[in-house]
């Protein structure tokens, strides 16, 4: 029982050794405040931040000055939506987003509704894909922001970001995308894809927790988010978490270095797991898109059984995964994402997500398939539903 297989990499990832090595000296050697420019210790910190900024900006084809560091993906989403809404409220009060966004986006939009903003939540099809025609017909003269996530955290569906960006810009609307899950799994080019604002997080790509980024295209009208000193050009004040920024930069450097090989390996592994589960377990539904999906995402619903029971049995075999069942979230309903794809509640309760990493091996995949087969058989024997 010593085997441990971590397949919840969409929740968070192990911080890579090279990242920790890079961060280490910024705790006790180069600990200067980057705002203290009159001595070397401070200048070293500032230089480290700017190097990391360059690495991250280059990776998404942004200019260094368009990249801001934040405390993470949730903060970036909050900033993008509130910042654009309040800065552009004279122009309009309408926001378009989707029913499958992360709560960092949905709850922020709901908050803005208290201030007179209106939100349209776009539907998705059974694969979790939005309809571009519905997007177009939802645009009003007072629409100021379109926020559509790049790739979904639960089902891995990748949206047609470039087309959404084109539509937004044809109408002079600001386009934000939450790319927290997409970063490292797909090639992002903010200029080519007409992205104005983009949220990122380090801990999903082998970096530390508590640090993220936001791309803000030059010229986009957005309010400053954290008021205070002049850090991040006054837009996001507060002494920078230098060691975290350094870690984020290093993580992206590694993602960049291994990108093609990484995506190819994960995709093969993902397909092996999808095929293995499909051919070994009956009465299942693949959640998400068959091809336009993140290279590390596998999400199935297993009819007649409930997700928390599956997770507990997986844990006993040393396998970590997650579920869209209400029982695992402490809420009344199963995942809003699964319900938006049209799954009934019962089937949504039986969903399990596996998200792979470069540490995942072929043997792990074989073991997971074999274990899932046993678990589902066991729970279905207990269940009154498939009789």
């Amino acid at each position, binding site marked *: 029982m010593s085997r441990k297989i971590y397949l919840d990499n969409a929740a968070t990832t192990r911080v890579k050794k090279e990242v920790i090595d890079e961060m280490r000296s910024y705790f006790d050697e180069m600990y200067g405040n980057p705002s203290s420019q009159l001595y070397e210790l401070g200048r070293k910190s500032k230089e480290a931040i700017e190097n990391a900024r360059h690495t991250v900006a280059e990776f998404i084809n942004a200019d260094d000055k368009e990249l801001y560091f934040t405390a993470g993906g949730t903060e970036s989403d909050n900033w993008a939506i509130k910042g654009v809404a309040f800065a552009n409220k004279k122009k309009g009060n309408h926001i378009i987003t989707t029913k499958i966004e992360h709560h960092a986006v949905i709850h922020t939009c709901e908050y803005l509704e208290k201030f007179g903003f209106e939100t349209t939540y776009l539907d998705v099809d059974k694969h979790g894909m939005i309809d571009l025609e519905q997007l177009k017909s939802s645009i009003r003269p007072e629409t100021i922001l379109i926020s559509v996530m790049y790739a979904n955290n639960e089902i891995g569906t990748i949206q047609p970001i470039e087309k959404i960006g084109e539509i937004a810009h044809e109408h002079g609307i600001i386009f934000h995308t939450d790319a927290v899950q997409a970063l490292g799994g797909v090639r992002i080019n903010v200029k080519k894809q007409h992205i104005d604002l983009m949220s990122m997080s380090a801990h999903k790509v082998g970096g530390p927790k508590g640090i993220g980024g936001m791309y803000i295209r030059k010229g986009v009208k957005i309010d400053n988010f954290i008021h205070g000193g002049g850090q991040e050009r006054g837009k996001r004040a507060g002494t920078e978490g230098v060691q975290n920024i350094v870690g984020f930069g290093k993580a992206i450097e590694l993602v960049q270095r291994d990108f093609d090989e990484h995506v190819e390996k994960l995709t093969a592994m993902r397909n092996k797991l999808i095929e293995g589960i499909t051919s070994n377990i009956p009465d299942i539904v693949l959640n998400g898109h068959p091809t336009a999906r993140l290279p590390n995402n596998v999400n199935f619903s297993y009819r007649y059984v409930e997700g928390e029971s599956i997770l507990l049995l997986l844990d006993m075999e040393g396998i970590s995964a997650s579920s869209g069942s209400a029982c695992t979230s*402490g809420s009344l309903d199963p995942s809003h994402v699964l319900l938006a794809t049209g799954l*009934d*509640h*019962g089937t949504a309760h039986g969903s399990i997500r596996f998200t792979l990493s470069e540490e995942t091996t072929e043997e792990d995949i074989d073991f997971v398939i074999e274990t899932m087969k046993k678990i589902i058989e066991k729970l279905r024997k207990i*269940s*009154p539903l498939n009789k």
Partner: protein
Amino acid sequence: MYTETVMDHFRNPRNVGSIENPDGVGQVGNAKCGDIMKIYLKINNDIVEDAKFETFGCGSAIASSSMATELIKGKSINEAVELSNKAVVEALGGLPPVKIHCSVLAEQAIKSALYDYAQKNNKVIKGLENYKPEDEEVSCH
């Protein structure tokens, strides 16, 4: 998050399955809420000779069904009807607050199966005189 007793009853649930020609059957919950419990009873001379269950639900729902069936086996129907969700929780060594509804479901499933037995045999079980199975469906927790 779960006690050892809960995990034991979840891992190795007692009394899983159905009973052929049961003397009483009760089903509560629904798939929308994420848990369904079905209890089968074999009753002889008003004694619960055997109890089996089938459950769709989380770990604590399965453990609650297992424990509840254990607690009523060998009991008279008048004793079985008094089984409370609190007794199930205590026997399990406790449940997290958000999972208490699982024990409520187990209590209701047993009452529903006993009611079914009483209906079929023109009996009145003390405590179930005014029982209406449809009223006992717990709403989503």
